[in-house]
């Protein structure tokens, strides 16, 4: 039996991804289980979902504690969530990261395959929903599921144009995913201690960040008053963004009457 854990953020479709993957594997004659984790799944907040794949009937009904494979749908999630916890030695991590695996800041006796799923999703769907791209990467890196059965399940899930767009994301990621590299010699990066889960730093939630053009800011205070996070303050009649509290929702950019705030993609 192979156990998989998906890490994502609310809105990236981790739960949908495990369901599609389970259906695709079922088509290939496997026994499967897709388990969503119940909790406060807010958009942008860390979420997990689990998958079991077996050659015979699966009797476990528990959450997955010692996965063989971990799939990470968000590039910065591993900085705040212990994604490698319980992962078996020699296990595989498939991660959404725009750079090679040895730069992802994950260390341990694992293999790591990376793919720029955010970039692919923005290209194919126009929105940073990375689940289908990560499924393509998973198929190539793990070799557990064929692209054909995934494509078939995808089109069943979303018939029509949406399905076609997701199909493009799936195929592109299947082609672009890097081969798994060994990350045993790498020092794991900046993980916060566990007790700080309610940290006020939400900067890793965002994919786009607001960029202020001070010359065009007229100090009308609309961005300041509409910001849900108190991330914008007014100093000397100009808006100023505090990036550690900004989730990148984009309300400020949308409401700015002079177009002084533009949303630009975060560069890792």
């Amino acid at each position: 039996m192979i156990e998989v854990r998906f890490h994502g953020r609310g809105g990236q479709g981790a739960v949908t991804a495990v369901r599609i993957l389970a259906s695709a594997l079922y088509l290939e004659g496997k026994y499967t289980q897709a388990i969503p984790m119940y909790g406060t799944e807010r958009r942008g907040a860390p979420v997990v979902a689990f998958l079991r794949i077996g050659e015979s009937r699966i009797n476990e009904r528990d959450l997955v504690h010692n996965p063989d494979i971990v799939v990470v749908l968000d590039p910065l999630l591993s900085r705040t969530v212990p994604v490698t916890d319980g992962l078996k030695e020699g296990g595989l991590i498939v991660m959404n990261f725009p750079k090679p695996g040895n730069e992802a800041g994950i260390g341990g006796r694992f293999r790591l395959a990376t793919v720029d799923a955010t970039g692919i999703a923005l290209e194919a769907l126009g929105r940073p929903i990375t689940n289908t791209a990560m499924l393509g990467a998973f198929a190539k890196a793990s070799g557990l599921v064929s692209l054909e059965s995934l494509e078939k399940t995808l089109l069943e899930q979303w018939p029509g144009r949406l399905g076609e767009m997701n199909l493009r994301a799936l195929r592109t990621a299947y082609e672009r995913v890097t081969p798994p590299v060994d990350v045993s010699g790498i020092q794991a990066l900046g993980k916060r201690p566990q007790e700080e889960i309610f940290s006020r730093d939400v900067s890793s939630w965002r994919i786009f960040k607001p960029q202020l053009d001070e010359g065009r800011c007229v100090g009308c205070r609309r961005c300041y008053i509409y910001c849900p996070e108190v991330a914008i303050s007014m100093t000397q009649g100009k808006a100023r963004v505090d990036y550690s509290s900004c989730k990148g929702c984009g309300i400020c950019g949308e409401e700015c009457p002079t177009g002084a705030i533009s949303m630009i993609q975060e560069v890792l």
Partner: protein
Amino acid sequence: MSRPIPLHEIGEKEYIDPANQACQGCGGAIVSRLVSKALGDCFVRAEVACCGPAFMNIRAPSIYVEVFEGAGALMTGISRGLKRIGREDVVVLGIIGDGGTVDIGYQGLSAAAERNENILWVCYDNEAYMNTGGQKSGATTPYAATTTTPIGEYSRGKLERRKNVPLLMAMQGAPYVATASVAYPEDLLGKLVHAKGIKGFRYIHVSSPCPTGWGYDPKDTIKVARGMVQSGLWPLYEVSNGILKLNYKPKELKPVREVLKMQGRFRHLTDEEVDRIQGEVDAFWSRLVEKDGGNIF
């Protein structure tokens, strides 16, 4: 009647901590920030189950009770206790979701209004039980798709009309009742400041869009809220001692189609259904205009 507060008059001081655990673009987070800014230093907050306890990090004494229906009773207790110790200057505020107001908490709300308790009830209305994944509530707009009113062969979304709690409260004789929207902070703050100066039961119902449950891009929160007001789906009015006043009264309402089209929960609507919504909105709006400036009953 309230006086809108211009944006440049709004104070710099913040009463909530920066960043929270709410979704990106959460309307409720904007509500919590504006409400605390308007009330200033001197208030106590009551809360029941909703998204609020998870993210409304207001720097004020807050009391949370697990009983969903208990908001009215809880606020009554706080307000009576404050009266006993001679601190009637402290505003007893409840930021309660639409579930705790319109459905589950309605008996407590209605009873508190009947007794004319000295409390300020702010309902932040995201039109469903969004904390648990978006089940239909009494405040959900008709025809909306929610997890309990899904779209399928035999279901076309929510069928029932929405319960108009602001008008119900006004008919119960509450001294001050108002509706507001996050897209009109001047109006919302003006109403809160006005309500702060009144004794007795005050009720403000704030429309606060939910990007996750309503199915739109988080950046459009204000756009959707504004569209709701401009199309007449969410009229802004206040009822002060039985006299109704429309706060936003355009010459012509925008068609509802535009704002419905922005939201995923209305994606399934046929042209006839949109026309039916338009008809209902127009009928309610014309009655409001008729009553504007006069007694509501």
